[in-house]
């Protein structure tokens, strides 16, 4: 009896935790391998709701319409003038804000409308670049307006919603996309 109780007292009553680290390592490596840290970033777009009828654009004044055509050879035609993508942003900013009050540019930013049309054979890369420049033009304008009004740069996350709304009411982004024409479709 005495012998038994002695052995009980001697027994190490802690669980051996040295393998815990190995188990945790195993799990860690499993998660490292099976998971991906992909930061999904991109250009956010709001598509127009679907309707069977083509929108009527005949009542728009030509001076307010900024038409951008991208053909199947990835060339740009802006208001019937060929243009390179590099000049697009500056030109669009000038068109929308019309700082010198030109007769053929938008009456005021609220009336400006951008019309984007492409062929089915247009490269997606080119299309996105053009879209990026047009969005960039508006971002530049919003930034400018925000700096002037509130003294802070325009930022989707940091600027209060009311401020953003005020700026967007002043310079709304109106970008209409026409159905692509069927040129240059891949067979």
């Amino acid at each position, binding site marked *: 009896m005495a012998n038994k109780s002695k052995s009980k007292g001697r027994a190490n009553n802690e669980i051996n*935790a*040295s393998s*815990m*680290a190995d188990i*945790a*390592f195993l*799990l*860690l490596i499993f*998660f*490292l391998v*099976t*998971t*991906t*840290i*992909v*930061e*999904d*970033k*991109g*250009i*956010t*777009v*709001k*598509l*127009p*709701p*679907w309707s069977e009828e083509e929108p009527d654009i005949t009542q728009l004044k030509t001076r307010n319409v900024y038409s951008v055509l991208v053909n*199947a050879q990835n060339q740009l035609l802006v208001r019937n003038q060929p243009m390179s993508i590099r000049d697009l942003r500056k030109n669009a900013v000038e068109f929308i804000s019309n700082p010198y009050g030109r007769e053929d540019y938008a009456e005021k930013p609220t009336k400006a409308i951008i019309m984007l049309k*492409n*062929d*089915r*054979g*247009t*490269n*997606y*890369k080119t*299309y*996105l*670049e053009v*879209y*990026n420049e047009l*969005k*960039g033009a508006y*971002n530049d304008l919003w930034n400018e307006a925000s700096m002037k009004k509130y003294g802070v740069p325009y930022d*989707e996350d940091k600027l209060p919603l009311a401020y953003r709304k005020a700026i967007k009411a002043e310079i709304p982004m109106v970008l209409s996309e026409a*159905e*692509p024409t*069927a040129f*240059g*479709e*891949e067979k």
Partner: protein
Amino acid sequence: MSKFAKKRGKADPNISTASLPDIIFMLLFFFMVVTKMRDSELKLTIITPFASELTKLEEKSLVATIYVGRPIEKYRPIYGTKPQIQLNDKFAKVGQEEADIRYFMESFRTKVPESRRPQITTSLRVDGNVTMGIVADVKTALRKSGQLKVNYSAKRRPDATL
């Protein structure tokens, strides 16, 4: 002199590893939280184009991804090199892409609580080298299914300052 020798002999030379599991668990939890399970195998080669005016997609559970690109080499004997649309782990059937996309969006919507459904974004991961035709078809299908919030996936241009 003998005092020192005695002390040295008694000291435990092992570093305590008792806190090691805790450290590893901390790392483990970090990775479990920040990462997302790869839910489908990508069967297309997709190199997204560069852009500068980017928005981050915040909540992964509200993002449905549609892939468009050319099949990887393994699938070329079956599908050829024409651009394909991948939904989850299948290609959309040629000729009924629209129905497939609508079904895909509909089944994604049912997984999201009703109050959050308007915040669902569709991320279009499209290869830079496909033509707009297939992208336009996807866009039309999305518009018809009432999914209007779309994000064109792109990488930050290396020279961009913002």
